């Protein structure tokens, strides 16, 4: 695996550059900067409508030093499958030269967990050579912090606001990685940009595989999470140490933990309390809600560990 220094000093320069209009402390620029640095072959990127697409491609500027295509909100995977099909077709008929071009599609959690799920599911099932990266900041941040299928339970959002009778979003976050595992794709992984080595290693592994791959990356949104901009890296690391967002990968259906905090495991409250979207959980009388979240995290963590343990014993 390439070191951070090696990634930062590539002769061809970086493929995702600054000058974009993302907020200070935004989580996704690091994800795409690192991910593209980890891709050695020529690559085409297809992005869904959302914060990242909007902030990085305001005409006449672009942050993308690789070919970049944006079509609409819910169809980056379908659009990318068209690009990939075109590449193989033009190659087959001798209209272009083989140069080992690879394909990355991305979307935020809205464009992936929700409105783009069908398009993603179809593309994964059809087996295109494509790495789909979901940057998951847990709400429709681009339109102003509306709840999504990725919003954690009891988070405060503008469409599931904390009110006199409701403590924010009432439902649990969808487990998208698990849904993707159900597509029998060769590689699925969960990571954070706060652990650059883990992200780079996973992108490198994904790109070593021909076929559909899926990566979901927790991304901080200081505006939506109501967090300090300087805490971006720390927040994703704490989410991992709280076991709210475990780092793991699923290769050919086999789950494997990438990191186990063991005795460094922190209470989920330590992560939640840094975020304004959860501040109501710390008011007197809401202890039960907090306990509920902790129990949910603990159960999911135990289930994931058991699954990894089970698969580790398989030959």
């Amino acid at each position, binding site marked *: 695996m390439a070191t951070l220094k090696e990634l930062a000093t590539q002769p061809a320069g970086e493929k995702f550059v600054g000058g974009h209009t993302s907020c200070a402390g935004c989580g996704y620029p690091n994800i795409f900067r690192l991910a593209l640095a980890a891709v050695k072959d020529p690559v085409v990127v297809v992005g869904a409508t959302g914060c990242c697409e909007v902030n990085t491609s305001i005409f006449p500027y672009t942050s*993308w030093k690789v*070919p*970049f295509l944006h*079509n609409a909100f819910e169809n980056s995977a379908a*659009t990318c*499958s*068209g690009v990939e099909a075109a590449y193989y*077709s*033009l190659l087959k008929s001798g209209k*272009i030269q083989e140069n080992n071009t690879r394909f990355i599609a991305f979307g935020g959690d809205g464009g992936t967990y929700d409105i783009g799920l069908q398009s993603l599911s179809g593309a994964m099932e059809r087996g295109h050579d494509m790495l789909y990266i979901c940057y998951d900041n847990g709400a429709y941040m681009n339109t102003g912090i509306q709840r999504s299928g990725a919003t954690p339970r009891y988070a405060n959002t503008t469409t599931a606001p904390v009110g006199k009778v409701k403590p924010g979003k009432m439902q649990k976050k969808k487990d998208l990685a698990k849904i993707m595992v159900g597509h029998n794709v060769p590689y699925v992984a969960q990571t954070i940009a706060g652990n650059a080595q883990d992200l780079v290693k996973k992108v490198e592994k994904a790109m070593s595989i021909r076929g559909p791959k899926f990566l979901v990356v927790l991304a901080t949104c200081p505006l939506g999470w109501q967090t300090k901009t300087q805490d971006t890296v720390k927040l994703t690391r704490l989410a991992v140490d709280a076991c709210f967002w475990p780092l793991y990968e699923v290769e050919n259906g086999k789950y494997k933990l990438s990191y186990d905090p063991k005795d460094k495991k922190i209470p989920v409250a330590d992560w939640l309390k840094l975020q304004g979207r959860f501040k109501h959980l710390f008011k007197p009388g809401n202890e039960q809600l907090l306990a509920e979240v902790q129990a949910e995290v603990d159960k999911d963590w135990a289930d994931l560990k058991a699954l990894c343990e089970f698969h580790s014993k398989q030959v």
Partner: protein
Amino acid sequence: MTVSTEIKQLVVAKTGNEAMAEAMRQINPDVVAAYPITPATEIAQIFSSFVSDGLVNTEMVTVESEHSAMSACVGSAAAGARAMTATAAQGLMLMAEILPIAAALRLPIVMPEVNRTISGPINIHCDHSDTMFCRDSGWIQIFSENTQEAYDNVLQAIRIAEHARVRLPALVTTDGFIISHAMETIKILPDEEASAFVGAYRANYSVLDNANPITVGSIDLQNYYFEHRLPMINALNEAKAVIKQVGREFGEKYGRAYDLLEKYKLEDAEVAIVCLGSTAGTTKDVVDTLRARGQKIGLLKIRVFRPFPVEDIAAALGGLKAVAVLDRSDALSGYGGPVFTEVCSALFNSAARPKVINYVYGLGGRDIDLHMLEAVFMRLLKIKDGGDLGQIVDYLGVRK
């Protein structure tokens, strides 16, 4: 029409869907992304067997929806590939979000589209409500009267859409079941001739060009959006001359010439019906019958609805006394069908203009027959002779 062609064409029996699939085989697109929907299913289905039998080099993307079909076509076309799909009704509606994006990115995707009623209630038979719903999406819209035209139009659509002055997507319609599933004897070009006619596709840009990376589909705000819309609007206007030129060339080479409009016995006519698609064929029969009885009547068939041939329509109808526009859909605007209002608009600034009435007919696949069309002509003749204009918008062939 003189058939001076030396190219030996094959005479075959084909349904509309088979003929369109056959044209696609000869075009041999780089990518086809499609999803089944009645009555267009067969087009992609037949084409799939061409792929499986190795008769084409096409990469077939069997998507999970029409929205993804059009999305994949956009991706393929942005990658410099010749991309096609086929659909109808609900499928076209599901694509609707992506249709204007394909046009704005100037991607010459060509799509056979079988006219079918849009829900609700759900109905699988022919009317033009689907195509009309998407009429302002920046796509060129070519209507076919029969199977022969369906085949010829698909080949021409490639040339028109990919023309350097156009670079816009195009759809070619047939009327659901009436053309799509009815077998007719048609002439098709030899493969090498069809291939030579459509020629090779050279894209203006490609996202596969890694040496010259470009960003496609930028967010385009108040300071640039308008300037980026204008070239597209101009290209649609330019398309009129290109459509005429391609139609003329097709005629010179293969004996079947095409234009934006087809004028049938209109030269000395006093009244006329204006319509699109298969109804034009039925109307020609009625024109012949009534002409034999000495009535000066004619037909104006609109072959290309987008771009709307304003000048040609004004010139063709300006000298007439009375015109009935037949619409196979209601615009739900409170003023009849979309063809009617646009024809009226085309005539409004003409020095001479006929009285214009509108009949909405054939919704949900309701048949239109010779007697109904004859009655329309009879009413027009009365109006011509100074009779009362009566109800401007009326409904034909419906129990009231």
